[in-house]
């Protein structure tokens, strides 16, 4: 009988042996080596063993009776250390064994990131039963676990350890979890579900070291944060286990190279499983390995068969996290998306179509149709006829559409709907139950939407959700085609549902597109940073180019650059620096603006970082002349020089500009401070215009002189300069918190009413809260964007590559 030696008793070789011995029990005399001290078990079920939902005995696939019945000589616990192809023998730890045919099925080895402390006791990878048992043992003492890696393995380990009572943090390098299988939206939902299980998730976090005295005690992240850790699980990826093959001189790329019959470059040696590379592909899930196993068994019996690579589908074995991903939903050209979100039920589905075929699917929350979609992908079914209703799955060919009210239906009872009066959804539904069935009745009984009125749309939607057809919803203008909600509704929901990321908004508010459009994205970006200045990070890619590059784009694609001149005051040094910059960068036009400062027009995009760096060196910062943010504070010469000046208007203007600069607002904000009612700073047509008088300061708001000419309305009069600053800051913050994106102050005040604004600013507690909230935000945004860009992002301003030579050839 021919001798078959198998190295590795894993999931792939186990299947080979099943097929082979079923087809012809007497074809080979089989010797099976395994480095583990046991035979074949279902490795993918280690996670249920870790979480306690299964025992090891339940996941064994081949026991000693099975091997005995098939005459397999088992050498478990014995590692193969070498292959001699000349003599056709393998070297076991207990001596050589000859073969006629050899199978290498050594699987993969966990990838260990090369950081200091990686070898400390208490650092475990996740591959086999021994690792699993080590984790179970460590978790018996409770304490903190840090799992490095937010992929399939890492998350299953995290969920298991959490179930065993450890306090678990997942540290993940990428922006969202399982980025290879999920898109951002599904990654967001997964994170939310894991967090609900008490697992903390840190994305975009790089591990610098594992620290501890004699054993792991903490994980040190980039940015110097430390996470306490009694146990560290490293699950950052796997690498095909190819050492034996390399030493034996077989052809090895990333994995052991095989042909479609699983044959290596030596015709008597086969390889199967995660250790192989076929046609440039590596494998990390069992489905393709089972195909390989069947092909290999056929090859050993001289039957024709060939392995082909098919799409694979992924599921995560964490209870309560229902996800599915299949096919190719990311890279590629010529693709089209269909997106469905049901915030009420936490569902997200995205299908990717190329031509008339489905090529990829990502689902979260409801994955019942996963197999059906996977079938369409694998079979390359033409889906043109079902395109319209495809996303609803096989049961709904013709039915169901997304419910525009589901975001409001999903709100919990304690979600605040009316911010002014602190009225929650539950209070409103109770009032409806007690007979308040229209807006006026709700206002009268609960006060909801009775103050500034911006939550009116939401209150109406609560009425509609509660009363159904009995209430006719007035049609409101949604933000854009991506959603069904108005700006005001979106703003309220971001606050009440504590939505702190774009993904949270897309999902919870039922966006119909993958990531918004040029209309909604800048608005949502502003709302998020205004409401959650600390938690949300400004996203430059959701900004118009002027705000992204901190310069104003011109019709020919060049830019204009305007440095700040505080209150319109400058000096010879600044003027010299501006003149030098204009010379150095060949600035074609230098213009005095209508806002009391100097504009350098026609600067090349590539020169921006350098010209900013030069202006910064002379002490000048960005004038935000492009921004929906603080623009200029125009002043007059005031008491310093003018015979009519009553207060230091120039000084107050400078102070105001220094407090407010860098802040983002719904639309631009312009200020003026005039030293007397002659009003040389044109204060009466500014968003905030202050006129100094003998008795103090008259503060007007909501003026403008653009497309509409609006005279300011008097907000209040104050006696001291500090009060003038306080009132201005409080007003700007109230505007930031409440206005619709792209409403100038005059439009917003017209909507909420000057009375309402006056009441808020007059209330000492509210005024103090507004000032504190503004300061908190400014601790992040009162920074010169030019300096930051010039230092850290200068490369982004240059072309990615210069192919002028190549293309000419």
């Amino acid at each position: 009988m021919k001798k078959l030696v198998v190295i590795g008793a894993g999931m792939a070789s186990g299947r080979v042996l099943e097929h082979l011995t079923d087809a012809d029990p007497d074809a080979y005399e089989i010797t099976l080596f395994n480095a583990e001290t046991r035979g074949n078990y279902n490795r993918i079920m280690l996670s249920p063993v870790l979480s306690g939902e299964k025992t090891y005995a339940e996941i064994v696939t081949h026991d000693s009776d099975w091997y005995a019945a098939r005459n397999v000589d088992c050498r478990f616990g014995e590692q193969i250390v070498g292959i001699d192809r000349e003599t056709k023998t393998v070297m076991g730890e207990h001596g050589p064994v000859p073969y006629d045919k050899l199978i290498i099925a050594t699987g993969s080895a966990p990838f260990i990131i090369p950081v200091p402390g990686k070898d400390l006791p208490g650092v475990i990878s996740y591959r086999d039963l021994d690792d699993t048992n080590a984790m179970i043992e460590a978790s018996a003492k409770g304490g903190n676990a840090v799992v490095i890696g937010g992929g399939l393995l890492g998350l299953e380990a995290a969920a298991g350890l959490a179930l065993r009572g450890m306090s678990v943090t997942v540290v993940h390098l990428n922006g969202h979890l399982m980025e290879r299988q999920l898109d951002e939206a599904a990654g967001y939902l997964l994170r939310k579900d894991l967090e609900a299980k008490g697992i903390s998730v840190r994305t975009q976090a790089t591990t610098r070291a594992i620290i501890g005295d004699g054993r792991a005690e903490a994980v040190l992240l980039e940015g110097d944060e430390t996470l306490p850790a009694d146990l560290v699980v490293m699950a950052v990826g796997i690498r095909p286990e190819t050492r034996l093959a390399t030493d034996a001189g077989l052809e090895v790329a990333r994995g052991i190279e095989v042909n479609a019959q699983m044959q290596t470059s030596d015709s008597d040696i086969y390889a199967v499983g995660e250790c192989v590379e076929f046609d440039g592909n590596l494998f990390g899930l069992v489905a393709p390995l089972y195909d390989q196993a069947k092909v290999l068994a056929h090859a050993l019996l001289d039957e024709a068969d060939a392995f082909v690579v098919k799409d694979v589908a992924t599921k995560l074995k964490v209870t309560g996290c229902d996800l599915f991903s299949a096919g190719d939903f990311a890279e590629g050209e010529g693709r089209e998306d269909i997106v469905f979100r049901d915030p009420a039920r936490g569902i997200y589905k995205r299908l990717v179509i190329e031509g008339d075929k489905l090529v990829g699917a990502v689902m979260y929350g409801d994955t019942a149709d996963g197999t059906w979609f996977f079938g369409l992908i694998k079979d390359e079914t033409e889906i043109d006829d079902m395109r319209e209703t495809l996303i609803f799955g096989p049961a709904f060919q013709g039915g169901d559409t997304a419910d525009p009210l589901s975001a409001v239906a999903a709100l919990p009872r304690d979600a605040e709907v009316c911010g002014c009066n602190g009225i929650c959804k539950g209070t409103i539904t109770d009032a409806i139950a007690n007979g308040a069935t229209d807006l006026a009745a709700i206002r009268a009984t609960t006060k909801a939407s009775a103050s500034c009125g911006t939550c009116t749309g939401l209150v109406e939607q609560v009425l509609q959700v509660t009363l159904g057809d009995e209430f006719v919803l007035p049609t409101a203008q949604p933000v854009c085609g991506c959603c069904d909600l108005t700006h005001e509704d979106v703003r309220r929901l971001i606050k009440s549902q504590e939505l702190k990321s774009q993904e949270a908004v897309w999902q919870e508010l039922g966006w119909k597109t993958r990531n918004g459009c040029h209309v909604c994205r800048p608005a949502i970006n502003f709302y998020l940073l205004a409401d959650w200045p600390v938690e949300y990070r400004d996203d430059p890619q959701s900004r118009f180019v002027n705000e992204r590059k901190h310069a104003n784009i011109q019709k020919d694609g060049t830019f204009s650059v305007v440095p700040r001149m505080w209150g319109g005051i400058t000096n010879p040094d600044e003027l010299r620096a501006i003149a030098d910059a204009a010379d150095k960068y060949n600035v074609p036009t230098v213009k005095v603006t209508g806002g009391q400062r100097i504009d350098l027009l026609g600067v090349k995009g590539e020169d921006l970082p350098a010209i900013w760096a030069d202006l910064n060196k002379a002490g000048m910062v960005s004038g935000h002349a492009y921004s929906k943010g603080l623009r200029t504070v125009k002043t007059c010469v005031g008491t310093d020089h003018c015979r009519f000046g009553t207060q230091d208007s120039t000084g107050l203007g400078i102070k105001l500009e220094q407090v407010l600069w860098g802040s983002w607002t719904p639309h631009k904000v312009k200020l003026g401070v005039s030293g007397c009612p002659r009003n040389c700073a044109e204060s009466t047509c500014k968003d905030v215009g202050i006129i100094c008088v003998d008795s103090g300061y008259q503060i007007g708001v909501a003026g403008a002189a653009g497309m509409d000419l609006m005279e300011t309305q008097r907000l209040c009069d104050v006696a001291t300069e500090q009060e003038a600053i306080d009132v201005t800051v409080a007003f700007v913050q109230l505007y930031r918190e409440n206005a619709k994106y792209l409403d100038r102050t005059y439009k917003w005040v017209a909507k909420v009413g000057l009375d309402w604004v006056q009441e808020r600013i007059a209330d000492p507690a509210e005024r103090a809260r507004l000032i504190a909230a503004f300061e908190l935000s400014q601790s992040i945004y009162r920074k010169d964007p030019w300096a930051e860009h010039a230092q850290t992002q200068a490369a982004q301003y240059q072309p990615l590559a210069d192919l002028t030579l190549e293309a000419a050839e």
Partner: protein
Amino acid sequence: MSWIDIGHIDDIPLRGARKIKTSHGCVALFRTGVDEVFAASDACPHKGGPLSEGIVHGQSITCPLHNWVFDLNTGQAKDLAPGEEGHIATYPVRLDEGRILIEGAKLASRSAA
């Protein structure tokens, strides 16, 4: 096909763009919200706006000058007013282990128009 390596995907911000210079003008490389990259002419057919400075959303780009929107798959302008025409040339690109490869032949053969 001659594929030219022009950089790593992380050189382009997520939902952002960069441009490359060719002897016939600039070509813009767009990276969408998932890791996919598209290449198209950088010049808007409306009034020549630099598309690489626009906002990338879904698989579309909005021109920074007057908000024309182009489908990056086809290069076709979307939702134009009746009578308006707009199309940008697109170029084959592919990703290999994070490296961005652009097809050289079509780049070289494109007309200056």
